[in-house]
């Protein structure tokens, strides 16, 4: 494999890893606050449809992004209502909302555009286009680092850079602010937070709303940056891969970055069977690469790759008095 191919693969790793990263961080907030969310997939899908549709109608991708975030927030609020207010089963609520999203996106896209559940192809200002970072062209001549900067680091849509910035931001928010301490506490021991006079409900709704926001960006990235428009089931299990990455990362932001980029790399490699064959010397079925994130997650869960221990109060509705 030559350097140019390596750069191509790293570039697609970032391209494909970005939605995983956003969704993974989204899940991190919710689960750290004690609300399991297997509905990341559905929120991304709803956001992808809403952003694709609004961008197609208005021709403005920023309005599309807002619509995507709004759609994802609505799903997040329903999940919050079921799991916080009505103390329902969080896992079942997530599963249910995934189904609702899977169906309703097609229903709406079909009734709006009549193109078999797709939105029309987006172009120009209706998409997030790649940004060339400063000096990318002039540094091109620098050996090794120049092409790395120009090909891999530069040339992604703004949402990708937002995703990467969200990692240190999340770290800072979780570990260096009062809100973060409370958020983590409410996922471990909500009764203690309650005793301190802080609203468990309020914190959990805040966390779920942040999850909605980030999933919204992830979905908008899918429909308006990674691809040019919404197509049915376009998230293709990415919400579950993000969930897997979250467990693999043991619910920590920097590790989430590593895990999602690793899983992004698998996806990038699955698209390039020629490269794998050249490096490994034999043919690896692409299905094996598709399955790899899930296998790794199972191993992580089983404690073979370090023990993954979820937030202690995760999945448990908080009841003030018994």
């Amino acid at each position, binding site marked *: 494999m030559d350097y140019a191919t390596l750069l191509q693969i790293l570039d697609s790793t970032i391209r494909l890893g970005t939605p995983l990263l956003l969704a993974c961080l989204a899940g991190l907030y919710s689960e750290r606050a004690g609300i399991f969310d297997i509905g990341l997939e559905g929120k991304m899908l709803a956001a992808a449809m809403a952003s694709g549709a609004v961008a197609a109608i208005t021709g403005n991708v920023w309005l599309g992004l807002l619509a995507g975030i709004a759609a994802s927030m609505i799903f997040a609020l329903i999940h919050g209502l079921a799991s916080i207010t*009505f103390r*329902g089963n969080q896992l079942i609520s997530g599963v249910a909302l995934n189904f609702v999203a899977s*169906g309703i996106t097609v229903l709406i896209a079909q009734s709006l555009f009549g193109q078999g559940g797709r939105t029309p192809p987006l172009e120009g200002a209706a998409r997030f286009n790649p940004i060339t970072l400063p000096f990318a062209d002039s540094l091109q001549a620098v050996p090794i680092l120049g092409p790395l900067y120009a090909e891999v680091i530069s040339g992604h849509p703004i949402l990708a850079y937002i995703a990467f910035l969200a990692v240190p931001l999340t770290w800072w928010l979780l570990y260096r602010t009062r809100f973060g301490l409370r958020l983590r506490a409410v996922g471990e021991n909500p009764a203690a937070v309650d005793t301190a006079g802080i609203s468990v409900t309020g914190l959990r709704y805040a966390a779920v709303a942040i999850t909605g926001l980030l999933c919204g960006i992830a979905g908008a990235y899918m429909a308006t940056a990674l691809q040019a428009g919404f197509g049915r089931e376009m998230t293709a299990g990415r919400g579950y891969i993000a969930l897997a990455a979250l467990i693999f990362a043991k619910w920590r932001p920097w590790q989430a970055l590593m895990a999602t980029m690793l899983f992004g790399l698998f996806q990038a490699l699955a698209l390039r069977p020629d490269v794998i064959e050249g490096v490994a010397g034999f043919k690896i079925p692409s299905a094996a690469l598709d399955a790899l994130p899930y296998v790794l997650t199972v191993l992580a*869960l089983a404690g073979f790759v370090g023990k993954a221990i979820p937030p202690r109060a995760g999945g448990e509705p908080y009841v003030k008095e018994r």
Partner: protein
Amino acid sequence: MAKLPRWADLVLVPLISLILAALVSAAVLLAIGQSPMQALSVMFDGALGSASGWGYTLYYATSFIFTGLGVTIAFHAGLFNIGGEGQAQLGGLGVALCCLFLPWPHWTVALVGASLAAALFGAAWAAIPAWLQAKRGSHIVITTIMFNYIAAALLIYILGEVLRPVGSMDPASARFPADLGLPHFHEMPILRDLFVKYGPDGAVKLNAQGLPVYSRVPANITFFLSLVAAFGVWLLLWHTRLGYEMRAFGKQEKAARYAGISAFKIIMVAMLLSGALSGLMAINNVMGQAERLLQNSAEGAGFIGIAVALMGRNHPLGVVLAAILFGFLYQGGAALGLNTTIPIELRTVVQGLVILFTGALNYMVTMMLAWIFSVGRARGAN
């Protein structure tokens, strides 16, 4: 919280959840400019309006009974098995290997063999998550989700590279020998009389040999097997020591452990049975209908099992009724896709809403009912 009478909990809660799901779906239809009443009448016509509609509805229901029972049995042991989809696909693989590579003298023998294979493969696919939960404490929900994806990847590989006949482009196995086909409703004596076709003059349509012509339906003998399975699950859960242990473990794990019930045994047995039941679904769709193994053979039935179990209040009888309801939804949804401009995905929305209202917002529904009952009681007292 006020307690509801038992009948209300069993009948009213699912019924109200269903009505709420239907109302929300109707609102969605109105929002996209369609008529809910028209949709409902097309669904009724397509699924229940004719014998052949019933033939499809019961075919889907058969699959859902199996996967619903699978979810139910795990639920009773306090385990949420989302892996029915993967287990059903692996069950399909078992059926395919069994039908393709073993010589069977007669379909009846093959049915027994294929059922064992389907159950075995489904159980095997549930065994790893079960073991990981029992021994290493990995959350069963997450591992079974992961195993669904691993199963999908495995089948893509097996169908694309191993079982695909030489020269074929489809990622599917070869056809099973024709003599292994299971009898469908329209091929069974007596039952087939329901499916006779009538000519425009109202007379029975006859073929060249002067025999009546029947409409072909996919519902097959597996439907009766699924009813037997439902009865078996009921016997197991409420009339055996093992069933008692499972329910005790599901209700109060600590107490069950203290009473000497082995957590390892219960988790393994419950998940193996759950996987076996989901796997058995493959008899219906793979052996009974497709007669070869296709990619994504379970077509989401594993997930519908969750809705069916919740709607059926985790009771085998409820599961059978809920499965027929979802069979109606599936066949009716297909009729919508064919005869109207409403996309077939409406059924996914309804399915999601039913799961939401019965499984996650059940407390809301119960609270509503409890309030209504308390108002009623107050009136009665006056």
